[in-house]
């Protein structure tokens, strides 16, 4: 077996997260996600999916246990190194976190600007992404004026814009019709094919029903594997 394909991008060992005052969102979760893998995480509302994703980009710290991204303990990554790590992680948040008084193009550019991409490169990338997600005519609209489904796609576009090694997507298709869902999934699968590790938290069984990637389920904060992925 090739050593490279077994490199863990995400490593969680006995991770628990308790929110104040005493809400146990995650209990002894241990998973290992190989570099280049695509994984679906499902579970009922409140099962801890968002919490899990937040631990991976250090938006929250684990109460117990070890969280490693690409070999480094998330607790020990600080300051400049944390910034560089986050530049490698693209996150589409469940609540989008869009700047509603900025245009679609400006929102998508932010992550690329932060890692000092050239303006021409940013412009081109934004154009491509908008085409892929069927948002071309919204280029200069304020994101605050968009529909939920459009905002959702802008959030996804921003997450993947900077070609991150690790893509975390929280409920990507909640507000989308079947066709648009198809477009979004095609894009994510395409990025996975070109090497990105992709984690998708979702309730939507239609998006993982017809693919053969690994499927995990969180139940009351505990992790269960429903289906073993087939590595290409």
């Amino acid at each position, binding site marked *: 077996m090739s050593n490279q394909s077994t490199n863990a991008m995400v490593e969680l060992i006995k991770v628990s997260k308790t929110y104040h005052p005493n809400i146990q969102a995650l209990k002894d979760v241990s998973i290992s996600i190989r570099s280049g893998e695509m994984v679906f995480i499902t579970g009922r509302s409140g099962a801890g999916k968002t919490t899990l994703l937040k631990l991976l*980009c250090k*938006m929250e710290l684990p109460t117990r246990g070890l969280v490693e991204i690409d070999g480094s303990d998330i607790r020990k990554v600080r*300051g*400049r190194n*944390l*910034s*560089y*790590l*986050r*530049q*490698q*992680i693209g*996150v589409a948040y469940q609540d989008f*976190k869009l*700047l509603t008084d900025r245009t679609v193009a400006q929102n998508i550019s*932010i*992550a690329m*600007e*932060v*890692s*000092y*991409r*050239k*303006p021409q490169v940013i412009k081109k990338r934004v154009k491509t992404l908008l085409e892929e997600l069927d948002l071309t005519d919204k280029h200069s609209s304020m994101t605050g004026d968009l529909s939920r489904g459009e905002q959702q796609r802008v959030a996804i576009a*921003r997450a993947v814009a*900077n070609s991150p090694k690790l893509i975390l997507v929280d409920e990507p298709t909640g507000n989308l019709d079947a066709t648009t869902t198809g477009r979004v999934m095609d894009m994510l699968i395409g990025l996975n094919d070109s090497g990105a590790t992709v984690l998708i938290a979702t309730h939507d069984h239609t998006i993982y029903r017809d693919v053969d990637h690994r499927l995990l389920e969180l139940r009351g904060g505990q992790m269960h594997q429903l289906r073993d992925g087939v590595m290409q």
Partner: protein
Amino acid sequence: MSFVFAVLRQVFRNFRQTWLSQLMTLLTVSLSVFIFAFFYLVYLNMLNIGDKLGYDLRLIVYLEEEPIPELQEQLRRKILAFDEVEEIHFVSRAEAFERFKTQLGEDQDVLEDMPEDFLPPSIEVVPLKNLRSLNQVKLFSEYLSKLPGTIKVQYGQDWIERFYYFTRLVSIIVVLSAGLLILTSVFMVSYKIRLTIIGRKEELELLKLVGATHSYISTPFLVEGILQGLLGATLGLTSLFGLFYWIKMKFSGPGILNIFEFSFFGPPTIVMIAIVSILLCLTGSYSSMRKYLRT
């Protein structure tokens, strides 16, 4: 894309979003630079004038009669007992008459009928040229007038004394307005940047999440502080120079202000004021930024 470009772009965006409050801050900084520089300029010019006055300052002790050499020696010792002096010079009746004659110049024929000894003999005492001896010139003159055989003591009138009192007052105002400059620059800039931070919390939080380094987030604000300081100093000093120039033009020609040469700050002082103003504004924005990034 380079760091410098990213910073300038963000400075430009900040300016577009908050230009009104930035303008207010700039005007406040300019005004306090102006007030401080105004009093400082007044103070420097007064010191300058004081130097000139001090240079001419001498006490003239009129005596009842011409002292014999031995008495001269005694008087000299008595004078030196009060304080060290620059020079002591005994002027005899004849010398006083001669001097008066040369002072009159072409009009000296009015002296023709006067006896050569109508002027009293005197001692000219030139105090040391420093501020201390100027400040105690009154005490000195009282001391001299009590020496035996003196008629009266004359010196550059008591307005010299008032002048020095006034100089000290101005120096206090300079210190106070320097305090004003410090307070307004640091607090206005830091307050303004804190407001901006609160107003853009969402964006700054997002920047952290997508991996913006601390310097990416904070440098634009620091540059903004530097610009506020630089432009504030420029604006303040330029308007002061305008005022200075106007006063100079207005009062040129014969008049009492014309006795003295007024001068503006030299280049080193201008640079110093600008640097101090920049540092103060930088301190203001740095303190706000640090408070934000720490949390």
